[in-house]
Every structure is written in structure tokens, then in C-alpha cells.
């Protein structure tokens, strides 16, 4: 089984990536980077990452979230985060990244925020 499985859903012009697994150095980080780059190439610039089933992330995975955020912003898009686990929320808090990312606990609210 892959370290990180990513499935894609479309809600209007927002692409939701449901992520399941670990975002860690190597396979997990690469999978996230590839998914985001492919969406940008397809012109999909409103991206919501559903992290409910991401049980583990390391500094490389956090770096990849930041990299995705800046790449999407640079392209005039928006990246938002949905359903952070408590551990991920703690990591984003201590790294002060919680002030950078737009984070939601409810999918409908997250989708509304793109309008």
C-alpha cells in the first residue's frame, strides 16, 4: 500500500484532495507535490486539502505543505486545509504556520470560503 493515497473530488471550481496516510520524506511528500503540480497544470487553482486521515507528517511533509501553498498563491490560486488532526494542528501551531494557512473543520464552510 502506498504511503499516501490521494483521491480527488470536484465541488464547483474547488478541487478537494482527500489524503489518507503519511506525508513524510520520500513517497508521501512527493505524492502531494505531484498532485498539486498536476492540478496547477490543469488550471485548477482552488484546492482544498482534506487531512482528516493524515495520521503523520514530518518536517519534510510540512515543508511540502508550505511549498504547495506558495506555488498555488504564486499562480493566483488558493490552498486551504480541512480537518486537521490534533497532532497536525499542534505541529502547525508550534511552527507558527497555523497563522499562515486558512484552516476549516467543516467542508461546506471551507467550500464557501473560496467564493
Amino acid at each position, binding site marked *: 500500500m502506498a504511503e499516501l493515497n490521494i483521491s480527488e473530488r470536484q465541488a464547483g471550481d474547488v478541487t478537494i484532495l482527500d489524503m489518507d496516510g503519511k506525508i*513524510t*520524506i*520520500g513517497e508521501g511528500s512527493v505524492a502531494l507535490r505531484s498532485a498539486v503540480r498536476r492540478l496547477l497544470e490543469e488550471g485548477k487553482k482552488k484546492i482544498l486539502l482534506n487531512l482528516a486521515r493524515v495520521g503523520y507528517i*514530518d*518536517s*519534510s511533509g*510540512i*515543508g*511540502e505543505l*508550505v*511549498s504547495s*501553498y*506558495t506555488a498555488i498563491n504564486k499562480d493566483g490560486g488558493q490552498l486551504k486545509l480541512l480537518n486537521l488532526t490534533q*497532532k497536525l494542528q499542534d*505541529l502547525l501551531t*508550534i*511552527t*507558527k*504556520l497555523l*497563522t*499562515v494557512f486558512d484552516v476549516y473543520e467543516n467542508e461546506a464552510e471551507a467550500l464557501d470560503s473560496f467564493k
Partner: protein
Amino acid sequence: MTLETTELRLPSRIEAVSEAAAAVSEFMSRLGIDESVAFGVDMAVREAVTNAVLHGNKLDEAKVVDLKLRNSPEAFEIIVHDQGVGFNPNDIPDPTKEENILKTSGRGIFFMRNFMDAVDWSADPKGGTIVRMMKKL
């Protein structure tokens, strides 16, 4: 409490990170370490081994990373020894400073220091860098 020592020689590949984490996880479960503490230790070990493999040994397959785990009645100690040229951890900028927040790397050492009670680096006179991390029990 049983006093244990585990030693592991790891290859300079990214896969070594999960191998090290699995060994530490087994060790901690034998010690009955609380899950919330185990999470931080696991994170610190992964970051230390990632640094050893990637920045220390630069993925050179001719080099290895030695991992040593031991406990005492007061603490759990993890030692990661690479064969790289070494570095000064104080040269790594604080990733929480405003100018560094959006950097895509440089958080590994911050996590190690954050989750462990003590972390220190030393140069092995025979070569390589030794990282000692300690978590109080």
C-alpha cells in the same frame, strides 16, 4: 525496570528513517512509554535519522548511520551517529521567525529540540556527527 540497549546499523537511504522509527517504537512500547510522549520521540528520531542520511551521509551508500537506544530509570536516550562532515546546529535559522516561516525546509532540528528534553551534537574525532537526544521518563 529492565535496562536495555539496542543498536542498529542503517543504510544511507530514506527507508532507514522508517526502519529507525520502527525500532524506537518497539523499544518504547516495551518500556510502556505513554503514546503522547512516544509521538514526539518518534518525530525527533525520524528527523535525526533524516538529517544523518540526507545532510550527513548525503545518501552515500558507502556510509552508514548507527542508531543506539538505551534507557535508564530516569530517561530514554537515543544516539544517532553519521559519517558526514558535520555542521553547527546553531547556524540553522529559527524556522518560527517571521522571515523563515514560509521556508520549505529547516524545521527538523526545531522539532528535535521541541520534543526531546535535551539534544546535543558533537563531532566524532574518528569522523562523523553524533546526536544525543534524551527524554525524561
